[in-house]
């Protein structure tokens, strides 16, 4: 269970998050929608623990842990995973090496034994196949020269491999063609489980046709302005964000 209370955060002294309240019970998927620049990515970075984001007020607890006290890697070990809006390219590190190092680091933090090369290869191959990434993509440098859609799939692949407890998907659907969207949604749905919570940030109702959310929240100007069921997403699709003090996005 994730519980965000009155969260305020600033970037270089400019307040972006202005008192976010959001609770996501275990097993639920919540969609967060909102106009450009409203603070969706900022929220996800604050949850993942990126440097440069100052929390000035409020609290975040996840499964009874004070998330804000943990380093980025401790949060990852605690099960936080952010599928980034703009995945980073890492020349010189193969996707295979990256996944292997990450999984073993997390297993180690959980007191589990590291997987040997054969076990790892088998696991990665099968997960990559599920998400529609070829083996060749595993051998390439992380995200280097990947198309926009391939990068997003790669994020979901990492998520499937690391099996986190809190999945934050920041516009993972943007830039995906219809077929890829289905594959990614299948990947996400396969991860739905009673002990896993998900935040799905999106601009499009379309994704929510495939990933049925338990709740939808509107984030505008740094605050959750409205919460509701799946119908709220359809309403936003029709009316835009004009009701929330913003121009239509």
């Amino acid at each position: 269970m994730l519980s965000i209370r009155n969260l305020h955060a600033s970037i270089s002294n400019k307040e972006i998050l202005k008192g976010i309240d959001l609770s996501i019970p275990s097993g639920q998927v919540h969609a967060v929608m909102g106009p450009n620049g409203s603070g969706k990515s900022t929220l996800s970075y604050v949850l993942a623990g990126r440097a440069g984001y100052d929390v000035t007020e409020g609290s975040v607890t996840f499964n009874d842990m004070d998330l804000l006290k943990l380093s980025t890697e401790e949060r990852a070990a605690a099960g936080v995973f952010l599928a980034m809006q703009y995945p980073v390219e890492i020349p010189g590190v193969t996707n295979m090496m990256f996944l292997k190092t990450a999984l073993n680091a997390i297993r180690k933090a959980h007191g589990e034994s590291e997987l040997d090369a054969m076990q790892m290869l088998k696991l990665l191959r099968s997960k990559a196949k599920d998400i529609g990434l070829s083996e060749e993509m595993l051998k390439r440098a992380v995200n280097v020269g990947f198309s926009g859609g391939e990068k997003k799939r790669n994020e979901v692949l990492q998520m499937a491999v690391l099996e986190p407890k809190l999945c934050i998907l920041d516009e993972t659907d943007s830039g995906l063609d219809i077929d890829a969207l289905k594959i990614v949604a299948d990947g996400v749905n396969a991860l739905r489980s009673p002990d896993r919570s998900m935040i799905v940030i999106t601009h499009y109702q379309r994704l929510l046709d495939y990933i049925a959310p338990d709740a939808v929240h509107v984030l505008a100007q740094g605050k959750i302005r409205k919460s509701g069921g799946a119908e709220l997403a359809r309403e936003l699709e029709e009316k835009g964000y004009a009701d929330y003090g913003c121009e239509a996005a």
Partner: protein
Amino acid sequence: MTLAAFIDRSRKDKEDWKYTDLNALLFSSFPRKRESIASDSEHKSQLPSNYSDCSADNRARLVFLNGVWQPTLSHFATVPSCILMGDLESGYELTLGEQTCLVAQPIELVFVTDNDAPHEIDLKFFIDIGANGRLTLLENHRASNAITTIETDISLRPHAKFVHGKIVQGGAHLATAKAHVATGGYYNNFSLLRGGMPIRNEIDVILEGEEAQAALNGVMLLRRAEHADTTTHLLHQAPQCASRQVYKTVLDGKSRGVFQGEITVAPDAQKSDGYQLSRALLLSDQAEMDAKPQLEIFADDVKCSHGSAIGCLDEDALFYLRSRGLDEASARALLIKAFVTETLEEIQIEEWRVLFRREIETWTDAQTAREKK
């Protein structure tokens, strides 16, 4: 060339020695006390114990103790023992006849010092490879408490191929290698420089015959107050020659790295293809890198490019790795290794790639251990 001769040159050609000052060597407390070397766990202890790790396999190895060749400690494998002639005084000669091919059998030259080492060791090598000959040679300079100078003259006859590797593990090391490459010849140099009290590694290549080629690559790994300088001069004298250079430098502490790379294309050298890249990674804000690429082109139909970049570890990449569970030190180590990987890929000999990668990993792992403390 002796230290005195190097210093003399450095005083005459100030531009070429702008970033590396040898005067300090005259007065410094160098050579370091032996104890301090022995206590530095990263440097393997000196001969003969440091040699034990080498005797296991069947590689051809010629051992030089304090600059003096030691036939009894050397291992020739299938290489004819007459391959090396000469002595420290007059210089060593390595001559390969026409059509002779020794690529399958790389030769390693191991340079070690012991307690009887003089203050300065001045080495000279003459390497001559006959037409269509092939030679693969690795110079391995163990951390030394003597000042080492090494002058290497290389002649590659038509279509000869020479793969020349070099590892310097620390100490004061001043080197000039000059390679004359005839028609269709190929000179490949890969240098891994660690430590540096200081190191100056000069490589001059003259592409004398048509379609001659050169590939120069290297990695410099520096920390503390170490100083290493790679200076290359590439002269395209004949038409249709190609040269390629990729150098990477990683600097921590108060270390200083220098890369000076000059490509000159003579008026007749049409259709020359020259490429040069120098990239440096600064791990500390007190480290310094000076990069001076230089192109002098006197022909009109050429393709030449160079690039140089100095940067820090990519914060976005660090965050990305950490958000996937890697601790900060491991994330940094992974990115440092990734940074030099591009250069390692230029090495065509698998065995060497493994060897160089291991050297680099030893360095980054020691670096990581230091950070974790």
